[in-house]
């Protein structure tokens, strides 16, 4: 029989430190698969965040440069401007990209920097122990939104991707999820599309990936997947938000 599914080349054979059922691990694999399939490993430079995925450089077998919390897109700007023919992507949590890094994200998109940002929306600060993130849903309990997030006290779940679509420099923005086999496949396609947009020199691309954090949501892995379907996706609908390669799309 033929092996039809195995570990991609660009993913080192070391166990992840992520919690059981964590979406980061799935997304890591997808990124490695796409890079291998597109043959980009040798020209790829990834920028991991401060966040649960800070150790991403232990898993990916291509060049990786650590970013201070939230500054991934600025750092990637420096990298990409110096090496315009490389594939440069950032990998950032929702706290990283949409709270502390808001300004950098928006202005990088606005400059149309030719990089790809992967924005992992797990509705909380995973690494620091489950505090409220900008994407935390209203009513969601976290250690810093006791009794559930209240809009006027704690702020509302932010729509960063939609905001970025308003910038003239952004080329491709899509929201996906990794809570089911179908959505995982779509996520992979979206990542591939983002990288393609970059290799074609079209400008800033971003894929927002809704991702389970069973630990901080205090759910089983499967409940977490269902909660994404029932709650998160209702507020953050999946789909292409902007695509300059298609007429009529975008805003």
């Amino acid at each position, binding site marked *: *029989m*033929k*092996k*039809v*599914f195995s570990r991609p080349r660009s993913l080192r054979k070391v*166990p992840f430190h992520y919690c059981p059922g964590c979406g980061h691990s799935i997304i890591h694999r997808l990124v490695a698969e796409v890079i291998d399939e597109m043959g980009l490993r040798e020209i790829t430079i990834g920028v991991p965040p401060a966040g649960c995925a800070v150790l991403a450089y232990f898993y990916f077998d291509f060049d990786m440069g650590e970013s201070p919390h939230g500054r991934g897109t600025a750092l990637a700007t420096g990298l990409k401007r110096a090496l315009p023919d490389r594939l440069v992507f950032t990998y950032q949590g929702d706290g990283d990209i949409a709270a502390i890094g808001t300004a950098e994200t928006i202005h990088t998109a606005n400059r149309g920097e030719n990089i790809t940002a992967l924005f992992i929306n797990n509705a909380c600060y995973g690494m620091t122990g489950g505090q409220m993130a900008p994407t935390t849903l209203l009513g969601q309990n976290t250690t810093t939104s006791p009794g559930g997030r209240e809009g006027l006290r704690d702020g509302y779940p932010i729509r960063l991707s939609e905001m970025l679509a308003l910038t003239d420099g952004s080329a491709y923005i899509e929201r996906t999820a990794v809570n*089911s086999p179908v959505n995982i496949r779509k996520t992979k396609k979206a990542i591939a599309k983002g990288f393609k947009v970059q290799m074609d020199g079209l400008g800033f691309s971003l894929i927002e990936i809704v991702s389970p954090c069973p630990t901080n949501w205090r759910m*089983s*892995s499967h409940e977490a997947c269902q909660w994404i379907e029932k709650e998160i996706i209702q507020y953050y609908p999946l789909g292409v938000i902007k695509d300059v390669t298609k007429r009529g799309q975008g805003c």
Partner: protein
Amino acid sequence: MNGRTSLKGYIEIDREFCKGCKLCIEFCPKGIISLSNNLNQKGYHPAYFTEENTKKEKRQCTGCSICAIVCPEVAIEVYRG
């Protein structure tokens, strides 16, 4: 999955990479993965492939790879042929 003849397949689960998250179990359309009662070195109950036991019930592995796609630990390899 129903409409066409399912190809025969099987999977291998790396016991030490598995963290027992049960996603493969929940998503396998054939329901042929189970959780072990024993702990692995990391202290998790790993999943294991149960096809041997379920063949008779026509719940054969199709090699559809769904389990591998959802597995966060890249602990599953899928064979089809």
